[in-house]
């Protein structure tokens, strides 16, 4: 029983309640309790990190939660090295983004509510990470989804924001359905939902179950971590405030699916089919999202598609058994993508809510700190050594190659090239050249916004030197990272791979430089004009939304209308209204008797008396 563990989620929960009840009194001071709560949570996470450093495992069985016959489960928190890494990332980046939000959300009419929601997210996310059984994990998996829904639709006056929130929630339902099926199968087959026990009992699963369960868990992950075919909600989620995009839709919540899969490593390792599926889907997601990211003109949309793409890399890492590398990429991605999003927020702030990069340009002169950190994070995303993203992406690609997945490796490498290209297309169009918007007076953001940028920029620079896979290896003997060093049957030494990977990234950066770094005139998408037809397909995002509209939304709407007409209006309303009409008609018929005219009453009374008397005296008396 370690009381440190419940403290981590309790601080932000206290923050939610305090801000919720005192929002009127707090007003624009609402960030103070929120930041203090998250900071305390971060410090507690640091303490937990220090405790598990040596490989110890902490647990806290707080109280029985559901007791129903043979089914018993409790609020059970555990922390091992994997948990500790996630906790550090979640609470650390949350703290920075809370601070950033002070500047970004300044003047918003729902300022206290924003911080209450953010604290609620941190509470749910830390609970998700700490959960020691799948049911608890699932509940907070849903809770972070709720936080995401509330924050995407934070500016719900805009229809697009309200719709994006709904889209995120509904698409995630599809994935969660798979997840809940997996949990039911686990309980039916193994009689427990405790994650550690399930890991130990995996070999007892029958073959069909051993394949079906990880696949269903993966369906859950495709929803939360925005994989093909359920990734469509994440780009729309950019309707939320930018700090939310950075925290929830880039750094932490969307990685919950990857975390869950790494947590369930024994289940995934038990099925080669599941692993293969995961790897292929991850790789396809990485490629598909990167191609769409090439042509986006909204600064946040570019970053959103790159997030989907990078999540694809993490899932690919899981699929090829490189759990440690996947977590490594999760951590470095959290650093540089949060930095990029916050930088984008700073740019949007400076440009007075302009998000179109075609209107920007030359912002380096106006936003020195933002542009510097954005550049560092861009290098990290592009995978240029020695920045953070290079090392983690290389670990994943290396694991794919050494695992014998040559095709996945080649696609991953090509995606890395695309990534470098679109990242620097974004950078050059935004920060270099001349400012294209008229009447714009960009200004650097306040210190509350630039300080988190600088911290995250530093982490994006040095994050690659954290030995996350090595750190996790002790706790995750099952993780496939060990095979990275062991087998070199791919025929390429690790150094050669590093060089190749660096060369691919740099060539992407170079191509973007050659295309968009124009000293004179307006930079054009010159390259795309040569492939106009393909460009149009990409601009329309491979028509995926249209396909969904045609394949899912329209049939559902038509079916619903049919049900509405036949079942709801016809049968149910018909029965209810018919009954009401029947009662009304009977009443109407009977009310003729209630004429209200006294002579009628008297007459009927007299007839009644005479009839009764006649009956008593003549017939029935005897």
């Amino acid at each position, binding site marked *: 029983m370690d009381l440190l563990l419940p403290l981590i989620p309790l601080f932000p929960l206290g923050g939610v309640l305090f801000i919720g009840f005192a929002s009127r009194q707090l007003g624009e001071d609402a960030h103070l309790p929120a930041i203090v709560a998250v900071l305390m949570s971060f410090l507690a996470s640091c303490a937990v990190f220090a405790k598990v450093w040596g490989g110890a495992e902490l647990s806290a069985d707080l109280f029985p939660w559901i007791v129903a016959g043979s089914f018993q489960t409790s609020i059970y928190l555990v922390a091992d090295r994997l948990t500790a890494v996630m906790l550090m990332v979640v609470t650390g980046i949350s703290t920075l983004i809370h601070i950033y939000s002070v500047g970004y959300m300044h003047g918003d009419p729902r300022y206290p509510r924003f911080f209450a929601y953010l604290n609620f997210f941190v509470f749910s996310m830390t609970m998700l990470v700490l959960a020691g059984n799948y049911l608890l994990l699932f509940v907070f998996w849903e809770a972070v989804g709720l936080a995401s829904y509330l924050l995407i639709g934070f500016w719900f006056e805009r229809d697009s924001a309200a719709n994006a929130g709904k889209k995120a929630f509904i698409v995630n339902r599809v994935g969660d359905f798979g997840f809940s099926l997996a949990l039911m199968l686990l309980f039916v087959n193994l009689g427990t939902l405790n994650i550690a026990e399930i890991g130990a009992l995996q070999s007892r699963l029958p073959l069909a179950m051993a394949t079906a369960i990880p696949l269903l868990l993966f369906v859950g992950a495709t929803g939360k971590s925005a994989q093909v075919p359920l990734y469509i909600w994440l780009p729309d989620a950019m309707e939320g405030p930018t700090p939310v995009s950075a925290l929830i839709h880039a750094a932490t919540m969307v990685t919950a699916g990857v975390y869950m899969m790494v947590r369930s490593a024994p289940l995934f390792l038990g099925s080669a089919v599941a692993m293969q599926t995961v790897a292929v889907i991850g790789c396809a997601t990485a490629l598909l999202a990167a191609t769409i990211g090439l042509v986006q003109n909204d600064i946040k949309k570019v970053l959103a598609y790159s997030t989907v793409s990078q999540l694809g890399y993490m899932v690919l890492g899981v699929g090829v058994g490189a759990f440690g590398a996947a977590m490594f990429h999760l951590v470095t991605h959290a650093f540089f993508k949060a930095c990029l999003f916050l930088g984008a927020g700073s740019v949007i702030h400076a440009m007075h809510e302009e998000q179109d990069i075609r209107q920007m340009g030359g912002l380096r002169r106006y936003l020195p700190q933002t542009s510097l950190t954005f550049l560092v994070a861009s290098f990290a995303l592009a995978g240029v050594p020695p920045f953070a993203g290079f090392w983690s992406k290389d670990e994943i690609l290396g694991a794919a190659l050494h695992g014998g997945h040559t095709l996945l490796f080649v696609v991953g490498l090509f995606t890395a090239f695309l990534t470098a290209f679109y990242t620097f297309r974004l950078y050059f169009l935004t920060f270099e050249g001349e400012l294209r918007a008229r009447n714009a007076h960009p200004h650097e953001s306040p210190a509350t916004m630039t300080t988190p940028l600088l911290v995250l920029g530093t982490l994006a620079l040095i994050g690659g030197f954290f030995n996350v896979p090595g750190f996790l290896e002790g706790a995750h003997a099952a993780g496939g990272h060990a095979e990275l060093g062991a087998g070199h049957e791919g025929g390429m030494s690790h150094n050669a791979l590093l060089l190749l990977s660096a060369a691919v990234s740099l060539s992407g950066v170079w191509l973007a430089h050659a295309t968009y770094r124009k000293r004179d005139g307006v930079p054009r998408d010159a390259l795309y004009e040569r492939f106009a037809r393909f460009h149009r397909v990409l601009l329309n995002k491979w028509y995926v939304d249209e396909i969904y509209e045609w394949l899912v939304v329209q049939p559902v709407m038509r079916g619903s209308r049919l049900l509405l007409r036949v079942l709801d209006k016809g049968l149910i309303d018909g029965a209810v209204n018919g009954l009401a009409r029947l009662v009304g008609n009977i009443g109407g018929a009977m009310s003729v008797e209630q*004429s209200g005219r006294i002579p009628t009453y*008297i007459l009927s009374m007299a007839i009644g008396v005479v009839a009764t008397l006649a009956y008593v005296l003549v017939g029935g008396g005897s």
Partner: protein
Amino acid sequence: MIPLAWYLVLSALLFALGALVVMTRRNALHLFMGVELMLNAGNLVLLTGARLHGGAEAPAAMLFVLALAGAEVAVGLALIVLTHRTRGTLDVGAINFLRG
């Protein structure tokens, strides 16, 4: 001495007369008088019974009926006055407050 049966015949005639008034007349005041007639027909039956069988129960019941009739007059007249004020008529055919 008049046979007791005649008293019963008289009271039956009185009751029938009252009932006829109540059923045929349209003026609420006339109705009222018909009701009084029926009540007193009942009283007459009670007293006849007392003479026939002796005992004090029947005269006591008759006194109750008298008291009740008095109370009825007080309430009934008040109702009639009020009805006349609000409806402007005492025609029971036109008074239908109780219409369902």
